[in-house]
């Protein structure tokens, strides 16, 4: 960390010349969080800060955290919406453990987010909102701005309501409208604090409000006023910069997991030379995939908003029968409803990709929070012996390649494929090295046009992959009937023969068990043997990888294996696990992968489990490894409460 001695350069927009002589300090990485009422525009402030930081060349990782209610009562703890951004000059893998700077727009936001702020961190509060009424809504008995309880932090009290009102007074808008610009004031202030230019957000405002020039002016004024307040106020003695990250060279964009899923589907259709029809019923947190795809109609993409989850799956099967690329997307409750129809796709051996963006369960659970508790549902949640290949994306950007792989597997092996994502990577953003279309692997599909047997067309005659032919209605001479009743081997006629049933069960199981991955089956970090192997899957990749990095620096003998292909599991994993003294599996559930690994490989896997609707922090994993090495186990689980309580927690115990 170095302290720059020269005065700040022209880092604002062209008209915001920074005349301040405050020193600028360079930091390697910073985590900030915007928190306010769900109507305060915190998600927008967060995404704007993210875009600006990405364009500056920082590595980024974000964690939006919002309530399930669209508008919970204003000022209450339940209505707090937050957006955390980790931006860095190094490679980063998580949205950050501890917050360096918190912007709290009201007392409820302060109360629910303060725990995440590190000692000595900056806490910027909108002091105008610390009224008796709002303090009471946040269940404060005394004003924390006055009672000394914030002594551990660098408290910065800013009258944001008043300053924003003054800045936007001459725009001709009413007080209600100008008040809505205060997120821009806060954003402007934080832009100054971290040396970010205003250009990207100014461009956004002008585009977004092109038809409402007064609103555009008000937002622009608020943003600039916030920035200029940073320059002139005595409240800050210094400000900061976070230099560009050293990422692999190439063209980058920012991407969320849901965006990457949608783009992966469009790309798969292109690579297969097919149309894509996405059939889905709106559900949090998967709906954005439907929105993204419905905007891509000029790419041969069609979307079908079905009447329910079952209809979405049924329609996807109809699409696959008709010969287009078929996909459906949902979350845990929807996957439960689709179960019977997924079984039909297994029986009729048709290619459908089913996306489950997991959220907190059971039942409606925590719709806007993340969890990994659908693995066993994906694996076993259907009647009968009903094997389905499962892929889990490890990050927002990995959703793209994993989706192309999912379609490759589905069409090559004629099978439905389950694609697991979760709320964390679905909504979290990171930089993405934009792939070159010409270098993506083609998806080869064959539709027969002639009978495959002297006796006629045999719809269940298999190829070397165990796949049956994908003969399309409309092809003369290949007329055949399929359905959910057990099929006679080869002919596909209905058969109740006991021996045939057993044979077909084995054939279906074998087909899935012998699937060859279309991409990396797992991601490995660290040595091939040692004391501890962390085995994870899905979105925990970033936190596990960063934890391994830290632990290795501390001298701990540790490696990690992040599984992307969960069914079939990589065969070699059994041998690889045996080269470590301890196996620890961090999961956002009570040990579902652990159960599968123990059952398949007879290895004594321990669990590090967290089900709080929030992703793992790096320190939770490093603490878990230390606890394991100390022999501090509770049954087969290392509890995350072994050390201090987890940092990221939406509402404290009184909440």
């Amino acid at each position: 960390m170095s302290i720059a001695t020269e005065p700040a350069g022209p880092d604002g927009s062209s008209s915001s010349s920074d005349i301040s002589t405050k020193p600028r300090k360079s930091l390697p990485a910073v985590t900030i969080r915007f928190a306010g009422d769900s109507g305060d525009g915190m998600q927008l402030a967060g995404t704007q800060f993210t875009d600006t930081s990405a364009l500056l060349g920082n590595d980024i990782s974000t964690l939006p955290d919002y309530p399930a209610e669209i508008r919970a009562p204003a000022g209450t703890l339940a209505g707090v919406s937050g957006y955390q951004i980790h931006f860095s000059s190094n490679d980063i893998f998580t949205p950050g453990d501890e917050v360096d700077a918190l912007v709290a727009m009201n007392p409820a936001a302060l109360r629910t987010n303060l725990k995440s702020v590190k000692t000595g961190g900056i806490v910027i509060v909108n002091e105008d909102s610390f009224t008796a009424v709002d303090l009471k809504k946040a269940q404060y008995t005394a004003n924390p701005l006055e009672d000394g309880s914030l002594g551990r932090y660098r408290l910065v009290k800013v009258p944001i309501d008043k300053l924003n009102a003054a800045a936007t007074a001459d725009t001709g808008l009413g007080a209600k409208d100008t008040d809505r610009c205060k997120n821009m004031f806060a954003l402007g202030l934080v832009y100054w604090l971290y040396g970010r230019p205003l250009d990207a957000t100014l461009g956004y405002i002008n585009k977004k409000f092109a038809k409402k020039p007064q609103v555009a002016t008000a937002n622009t004024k608020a943003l600039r006023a916030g920035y200029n307040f940073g320059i002139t106020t005595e409240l800050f003695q210094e400000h900061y910069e976070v230099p560009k990250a050293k990422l692999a060279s190439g063209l980058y964009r920012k991407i969320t997991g849901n965006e990457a899923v949608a783009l992966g589907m469009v790309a798969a259709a292109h690579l297969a030379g097919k149309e894509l029809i996405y059939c889905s019923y709106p559900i949090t947190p998967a709906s954005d995939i439907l929105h993204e795809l419905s905007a891509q109609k000029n790419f041969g993409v069609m979307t079908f908003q079905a009447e329910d989850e079952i209809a979405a799956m049924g329609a996807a099967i109809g699409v696959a029968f008709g010969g287009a690329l078929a996909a459906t997307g949902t979350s845990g409750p929807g996957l439960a409803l689709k179960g019977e129809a997924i079984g039909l796709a297994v029986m009729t051996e048709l290619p459908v990709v089913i996306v489950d963006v997991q959220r907190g369960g059971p039942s409606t659970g925590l719709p806007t929070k993340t969890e990994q508790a659908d693995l066993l549902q994906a694996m076993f949640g259907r009647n009968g012996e009903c094997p389905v290949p499962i892929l889990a994306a490890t990050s927002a950007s990995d959703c793209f390649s994993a989706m192309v792989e999912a379609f490759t597997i589905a069409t090559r092996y004629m099978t439905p494929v389950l694609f697991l994502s979760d709320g964390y990577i679905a909504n979290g953003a990171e930089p993405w090295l934009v792939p070159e279309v010409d270098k993506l692997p083609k998806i080869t599909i064959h539709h027969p046009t002639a009978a495959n047997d002297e006796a006629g067309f045999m719809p269940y005659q298999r190829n070397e992959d165990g796949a049956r032919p994908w003969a399309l209605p409309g092809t003369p001479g290949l007329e055949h009937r399929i359905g959910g009743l057990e099929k006679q081997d080869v002919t596909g006629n209905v058969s109740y023969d006991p021996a045939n049933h057993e044979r077909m069960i084995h054939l279906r199981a074998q087909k899935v068990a012998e699937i060859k991955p279309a991409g990396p089956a797992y991601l490995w970090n660290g040595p091939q043997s040692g004391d501890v192997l962390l085995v994870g899957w899905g979105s925990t990749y970033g936190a596990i990888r960063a934890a391994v990095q830290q632990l290795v620096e501390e001298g701990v003998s540790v490696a990690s294996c992040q599984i992307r292909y969960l069914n079939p599991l990589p065969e070699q994993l059994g041998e690889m696990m045996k080269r470590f003294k301890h196996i620890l599996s961090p999961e956002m559930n009570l040990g579902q992968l652990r159960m599968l690994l123990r059952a398949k490989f007879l290895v004594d896997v321990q669990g590090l489990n967290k089900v709080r609707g929030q992703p793992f922090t790096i320190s939770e994993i490093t603490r878990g490894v230390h606890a394991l090495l100390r022999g501090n186990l509770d049954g087969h689980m290392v509890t995350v409460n072994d050390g201090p309580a987890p940092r990221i927690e939406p509402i404290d115990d009184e909440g």
Partner: protein
Amino acid sequence: MSIATPPVNVLKASDFASDQDPRWCPGCGDYAILAQTKKVLAKIGADRSKTVFISGIGCSSRFPYYMNTYGFHSIHGRAPTLVTGLKLANPGLTVWMVTGDGDALSIGGNHLIHMIRRNVDVKILLFNNRIYGLTKGQYSPTSEHGKKTKSTPMGSPDMPVRPISIAIAAEASFAARAIDIDVKHLEYVLERAAHHKGSAFVEIYQNCNIFNDGAYSYATDKQSKSDTTLYLEHGKPMRFGKELDKAIRVNQMRPEIVNVKDVPADELLIHDEKAPNPTLAFMLSRMRHPDFPEPLGVFRAVDQERYAQLVRSQSEQAVQRLGKGDLQALLRGSETWTV
């Protein structure tokens, strides 16, 4: 060079039979419907390779196995969802959906409504035997109130639904009714459905001679049928009875039975299957034995835009407006930076 007429491959009804033997109970009404369907397909010159039969679960849903076309025997109640997906993928196919009163109106009621309101291009054959046959005799959504069955030993407490009322309420562009044993009329109705563009909903009164024998004897019995049924003809007054001596008149928005000789001819209700407003068709769907003769024939047949065509025309518009999608540009998105 002369222009030769390509040889027309004329198929007979028997060409539409698959190599599987039907396994319905002897005497089941399904046989007659299967026979008439094959006959109609031959008559309209259907292409076997472009014809698809899709069904759910139940006795009627075995139908696709007996047709030498493409077929899909799906799961209980969900046939409409497969139909919708298939038509989106390939609107050029001719799709027939075969279902029953339990499949379509109980477990699949939701899907049926939504497929019909979208006007997916499909011929829907709903075999209504007012009983669950495959599960051996429980009451169905169309069973009469008070009906004693295996699962209602003291009589059904449910009120039955009227399939055509549901279809009309779901904005059906085509709704019709036929009886299994009146094969001539059944053939006529199936042919009309075959030619309709959009969701063609056909309720077929079908006798289950094992679990609900005689459910429609009032409408099939030689003695009573002319008084208990009414054959709808577009543009003609609704007359019935052995001598066509009775008719329907609307009085204060309610239908009533009149003697033809007692009322002026211009007071008799004239059938209009093309009426843009579905009120008449809905009123006809409410006419029930024994208060009224039950209408048979085409209740409603209007032109409406079809779902798959609408969806695809949006894609075409998007291509016209934005050009064919450039995947590389899409992947780049709007904001990029170079490292």
